[in-house]
């Protein structure tokens, strides 16, 4: 019997050893497999100690509430700021600013002050930092209202600083309790999770004529007085350029070409510019490199110079063909005209404050690039003013303020044309640049221009409040 008792002792020794070995797999070898899993509620700490997000005037946009010991992210303005603000969810993880500014909102490595240092030593988690956005909630709301539930996007920025004052994408979604609606949102054919303002890729249509005009002027291929003849069509090999609404413009000068949005004139301009120059300027306007405004923005899509045919080049010059970009990209192009040829680096993070209200980081406006000279920019701007005063953009005229803008009606493979309008005001000292696109909305002048008009009017009427306070 002694022998058999020893057998059983050995059996249990082996079983317990197996437990220890198995345990080492969970705790040491495969540790990250379990710990890093998104279902691990320890990642909740990310939410519990997360900082708040405010708009430029200190309006609370996102905060953490704790009910029944369970931290939950709360967004008081629901879908108004989505998708740029994003969400922070236990199961779904983070998105938008919540995702890309996560390291500022949580995960602070070092304490900010001596009191925090003490609690840090005692093993307390440090409270996260607060983020202040450049977004102005009032303007954001004006954008949402102006879009009136039509699919599309609006970008409002200050061309002199690069601050993004509003970034609306319609439809948005309610980030509160998003996991309940997750399946529906994900499968929704109107793609509410996509941020159309920065991730949407649309052909720019005639709005891109501003770009072509600036390039042609910069290179000296056209002047204010160059005259184009427009019989209503223009042949490049087997490809024929038409005017958008039929008809012809006869003999038009450069200004007339922009005011009347003459495709034939711009096709000719494009051919003069040539593939290499065109491509070079697309690059100089920073359209071909990804950048970060607080969330990452991918490059616009544009064919390589070598791949572009004459016909393709002519099409690109008036914003059709294989070029696609987001409203934010178009805003960059327009901001150069508003800002003496300079493009300011765009940003949505105004600053970061520690838990006790001290500034730990402030974004300073910086010149990103200067693709065209001030004189070119001025010349284009004065023509854009005319395009609003007596051209296609007449619906965005504002009494007593000069508005510089350009319409776009972009043909696309998805149905009706996309309606574009981009404008800045006051033209002599631009402070607001608004770009709006309505998907399959129809004519830019008829659909998008009134949207931009109402937003600009709101901004200009509201000018007292857009000072430096935040």
């Amino acid at each position, binding site marked *: 019997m002694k022998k058999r008792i020893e057998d*059983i002792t050995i059996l249990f020794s082996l079983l317990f050893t197996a*437990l220890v070995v198995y345990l080492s797999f969970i705790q040491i070898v495969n540790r990250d497999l379990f710990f890093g899993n998104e279902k691990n509620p320890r990642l909740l700490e990310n939410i519990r100690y997360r900082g708040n997000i405010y708009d430029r005037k200190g309006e609370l946009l996102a905060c953490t509430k704790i009910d029944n010991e369970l931290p939950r992210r709360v967004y008081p303005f629901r879908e108004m700021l989505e998708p740029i603000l994003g969400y922070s969810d236990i199961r779904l993880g983070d998105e938008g600013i919540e995702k890309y500014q996560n390291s500022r909102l949580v995960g602070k490595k070092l304490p900010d002050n001596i009191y925090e240092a003490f609690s840090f030593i005692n093993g307390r988690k440090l409270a996260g930092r607060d983020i202040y956005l450049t977004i102005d909630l009032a303007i954001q709301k004006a954008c949402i209202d102006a879009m009136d539930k039509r699919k599309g996007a609006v970008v409002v920025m200050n061309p002199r600083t690069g601050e993004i004052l509003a970034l609306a994408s319609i439809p948005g979604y309610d980030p509160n309790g998003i996991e309940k609606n997750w399946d529906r949102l994900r499968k929704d054919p109107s793609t509410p999770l996509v941020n159309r303002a920065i991730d949407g890729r649309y052909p720019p249509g005639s709005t891109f004529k501003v770009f072509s005009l600036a390039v042609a002027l910069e290179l000296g291929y056209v002047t204010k007085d160059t005259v184009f003849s427009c019989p209503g069509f223009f042949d490049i090999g087997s490809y024929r350029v038409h005017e958008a609404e039929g008809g012809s413009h006869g003999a038009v000068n450069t200004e007339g070409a922009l005011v009347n949005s003459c495709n034939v004139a711009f096709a000719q301009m494009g051919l003069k510019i040539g593939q290499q120059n065109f491509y070079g300027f697309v690059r100089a306007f920073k359209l071909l490199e990804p950048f970060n405004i607080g969330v990452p923005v991918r490059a616009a899509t544009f064919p390589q110079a070598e791949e572009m045919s004459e016909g393709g080049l002519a099409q690109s010059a008036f914003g059709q063909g294989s070029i696609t970009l987001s409203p934010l990209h178009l805003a960059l192009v327009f901001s150069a005209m508003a800002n003496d040829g300079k493009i300011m680096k765009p940003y949505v993070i105004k600053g970061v404050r520690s838990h006790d209200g001290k500034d730990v980081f402030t974004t300073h406006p910086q010149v990103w690039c200067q693709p065209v000279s001030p004189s070119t920019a001025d010349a284009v701007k004065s023509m854009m003013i005319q395009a609003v005063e007596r051209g296609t953009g007449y619906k965005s005229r504002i009494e007593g303020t000069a508005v510089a803008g350009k319409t776009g009606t972009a043909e696309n493979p998805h149905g009706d044309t996309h309606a574009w309008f981009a404008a800045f005001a006051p033209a002599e000292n631009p402070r607001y640049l608004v770009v709006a696109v309505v998907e399959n909305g129809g004519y830019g002048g008829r659909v998008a221009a009134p949207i931009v008009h109402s937003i600009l009017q709101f901004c200009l009427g509201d000018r007292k409040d857009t000072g430096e306070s935040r």
Partner: protein
Amino acid sequence: MSKKIHFRKAELRLLLLLSLIYCVGIALIKMSHGEKLDISVMMTALPLLIAFWTTHTLLTISDSKTDEMLMPLFAFLSIIGHIEIYRLEPALAFKQVLFILGGFALFNIWYLKGFDYRIWEDYKYLVLFSGIAIQIAVMILGTEINGAKLWFRIGSINFQPVEVVKILVVVFLASYLKQKKEFITSHPKRWLDSLSFKYLLPLIAILGCCELILVVQKDMGMALLLFGTFMCLFYIATERIGMIVCAFLLFLMSSYALIQKFPHVHVRFAVWLDPWQDPNGSGYQILQSLFALSAGGFWGTGLGMGSPTLIPAVHTDFVFAAIGEEMGFLGAMAVILAYLFLVHRIFKVSLQCHDEFGSLFAAGLGALLACQVFIITGGSIKFIPMTGITLPFISYGGSSVISNFFLMALVFQIAEQAGKKKSQLLQMKAS
């Protein structure tokens, strides 16, 4: 012959170390609760310190011949229990202290004044039937908690009678096997011959009992525990590997049939195979346990610094995962080794015991404890399917704590007899 006091030096040293670990543990928990470190640490630790130092004194005075490793080992496990409960459910910690104090009291009284364990042998059928009666009573009169009728409610105290029944079963098995082992082993060793009903009767009876517990009481853990203990004892008593294999296969087959038939068993099995299938439902608890263990890593997050309370039922079924999170792989391994050490020492008592019943009895108690630790620890780390039983000495719960102290008292009685016999033999040799 002058009476000389034999000091239990090893026990004394271990208890000194233990007292230090205990106070440091309580102090750490107090700190993590944000309390000041002062005399209250001593006040919290005092009841159990008094309990095991008193036990040590009593053992010394009564000139106990028992193994000096045993008491520090289960005292260690019960202080880990108190520290963990204090960490996880501070409101229940004082009750746990009372349970442990009750356990120590029962241990001392039973060991010093309880009737001789050898008497059990004569009342084995009474023991068996009272065990069965208790089980039937709880099925009919018991209070249902979490969908299983396993408790008696007396006032505000819930009593889980199966914790007593498991010991009664070991008592019966030890005495029954002692009596019948000649009969079973004298039989030709060709295992096909043992397939006659007469020999298989006890096997079938115990299998039936286990399956009954599984089906009627939905207590998979206890069924597994009793079956495992029985198999160990049967092997020790008879060495009939053939019959064990037979019973094991029968158990597997009948269990398989039951898994198919009863959803509550089936769910547990499916969760063990793949908890990710329903991570927010049936797989939730075991995944929380795995998350906790992985959060601990090698060194652990530190006492009071992890989030083990995210695991449902962490202070009862999943206390091991909490140890793994906050004390790390090191701490979890230490606890497993402490159990292994304790089991090893109980088997040593069994080996040293000169009467056959005592030897079988001690081995049965050792196997019972070992099986229970293996089943619950393995379950909470997903080594085997999870079955809700308690981790001896550590899990919160009066019935469990007190019955395990009772188990240790029985082991001590057997060890005392063995020790006495040994010293008698030594004296005879000397004279």
